[in-house]
């Protein structure tokens, strides 16, 4: 961390409010791969007195949590909420009753945890996790920051009590003002030591709960592949724009070393089942980010794992249809056609298929697809538009 007051405060502001898995989490960690048995989970925390620095921070986060509960972006799905709470309970070894998990509809990769026990999990992360173990790895890392009280340490490191009053009004919703286009929130302020400790605590928690620790390396690897699209080959090695983390490689290797080869649960099926009712919406949110190349890396990976997944085929078809560069219409047609043949194809597949056929001047095929769409979704928001296309085609 740079040592000037302003940067320190800014760093704290960015961290305390949104304890993000920022790029620092990816910026290589020092090679101190220690035995996990030295990691101790502390006993439950007591609520600090309101007139202390920590008490003030809790109070502030309590207010944010109250607002978050009313936010239209908070995902209310009962099954998902119960599933996430249960997962965190299994990971957090006795801290369960102090932690509340809030899933939030933001199509970017992030999770964060506040010292008062509020944990946020963004839908972009849940879409990207391939199984329960990968999600457990990320949530375990966040729990690591919480259990080791990194946020509070940073508050004290800032040596500025006014920081709390400055934070009021700057927490600003569940998203961030900066970097609303990027895949990850462009902010973090944990030191490398904190990140490394959170990594080890996370690994300790996930292995103790019976998960395969190697999945922790997998989710970061997958994310890096997406970040490299715009970030270049060194994406993830560079830290925050205000900081100067040296470039070090090997985090993946360290995680693998910590994971050992004992194996464990991956939990792909229960995870797939619980996110199934929400996943199409998350895929559509991902497409609407308009970062087509990043989305294609994600969708290609998802389809490699599960070929013929009609929702992902539809989403990839949409990305190609919208990008519409050389060869994209044919790629869109291929995906959408395959999706439309699946028994549970999303109804939007037929609209997209009709639009691609129309653009390729295949009038009969376009009309057929549009008719199927209107038959399956007569109340669709764009029904009037599609009817006007049908009239043109005939």
């Amino acid at each position, binding site marked *: 961390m740079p040592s000037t007051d302003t940067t320190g405060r800014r760093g704290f502001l960015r961290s305390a409010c949104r304890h993000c898995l920022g790029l620092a989490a990816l910026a290589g960690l020092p090679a101190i791969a220690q035995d996990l048995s030295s990691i101790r989970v502390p006993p439950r925390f007591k609520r600090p007195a309101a007139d202390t620095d920590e008490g003030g921070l809790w109070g502030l986060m309590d207010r944010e949590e109250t607002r978050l509960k009313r936010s239209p972006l908070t995902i209310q799905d009962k099954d998902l909420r119960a599933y996430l709470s249960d997962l965190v309970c299994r990971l957090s070894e006795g801290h369960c009753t102090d932690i509340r998990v809030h899933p939030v509809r*933001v199509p970017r990769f992030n999770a964060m945890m506040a010292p008062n026990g509020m944990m946020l999990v963004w839908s972009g992360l849940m879409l990207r996790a391939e199984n329960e173990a990968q999600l457990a790895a990320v949530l375990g890392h966040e729990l690591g920051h919480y259990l080791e009280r990194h946020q509070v340490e940073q508050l004290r490191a800032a040596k500025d009590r006014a920081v709390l009053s400055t934070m009021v009004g700057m927490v600003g919703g569940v998203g961030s003002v900066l970097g609303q*286009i990027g895949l990850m929130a462009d902010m973090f302020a944990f030191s490398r030591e904190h990140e490394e400790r959170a990594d080890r605590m996370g690994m300790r928690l996930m292995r103790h709960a019976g998960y395969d620790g190697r999945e922790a390396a997998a989710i970061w690897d997958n994310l890096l592949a997406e970040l490299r699209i715009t970030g*270049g080959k060194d994406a993830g090695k560079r830290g925050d724009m205000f900081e100067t983390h040296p470039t070090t490689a090997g985090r993946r290797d360290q995680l693998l070393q910590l994971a050992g080869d004992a194996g464990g649960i991956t939990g792909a099926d229960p995870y797939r089942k619980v996110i199934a009712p929400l996943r199409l919406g998350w895929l559509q949110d991902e497409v609407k980010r308009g970062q087509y190349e990043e989305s294609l890396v994600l969708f290609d990976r998802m389809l490699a794992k599960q070929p013929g997944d009609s929702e992902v085929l539809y989403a990839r078809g949409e990305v190609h249809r919208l990008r519409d560069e050389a060869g994209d219409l044919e790629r869109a047609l291929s995906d959408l056609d395959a999706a439309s043949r699946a028994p549970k194809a999303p109804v939007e597949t037929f609209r997209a298929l009709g639009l691609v056929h129309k653009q390729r001047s295949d009038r009969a095929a376009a009309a057929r697809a549009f008719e199927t769409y209107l038959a399956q979704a007569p109340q669709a928001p764009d029904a009037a538009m599609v009817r006007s296309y049908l009239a043109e085609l005939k």
Partner: protein
Amino acid sequence: MKKVLALLLALLLAACANVSRMDGEQVVNDRLAVHLTDAWNKVSDPWEVDPYDTWTQEGIPLDHLRLWGGVRPGQPLMTKPAVFSRAADAKDRRVPTFRVGLPPERLVSLFEELYATAGAVTVTRMEPAMFAGQKGVRFEFTLARRSDDLDMQGVGWVAVRQDATWGEELYAATFVAPRLSFYQRLLPMAEAVVKSARIRSNPARS
């Protein structure tokens, strides 16, 4: 430290947006003329020149009417986000950009992507409509805004005009306000502006 704070304060004040009162005949980007029966406030940010005009009744945190007048192919519909530090081989992020030959639903997708940078967007209606004397599309949407967790409602009109010089030009308007109370109350004023929209026939080319 004090000097730094003074500098920061000066920068903060300098960054304040300008607000000017708009009424009568107004022209956006020399190309899109509107007639105002109600006065609007035009908000302009001297630090960030957006490719659209932003007007408001109650203030930007609440409602905005954005007007795009004559966007040319290859031009983005929004300001590109600032990048402060990047690797040599890093690429620019995509921003919704107008191009030639877009069918109506793809024009709507551009605005969907534009508002998706602010929150979760859902298009709730899309239908053929006239805008600025051109055949185009009208769409409605909801926006769960991240910056303040507000439930917003929006409506947009977009049309493309054939142009001898540029091939095509995009004209559009969007109006967004909190779903509760504000949207219904202010919508007629926004619609009045949109109904009056027409393209200037002999504009001064820049």
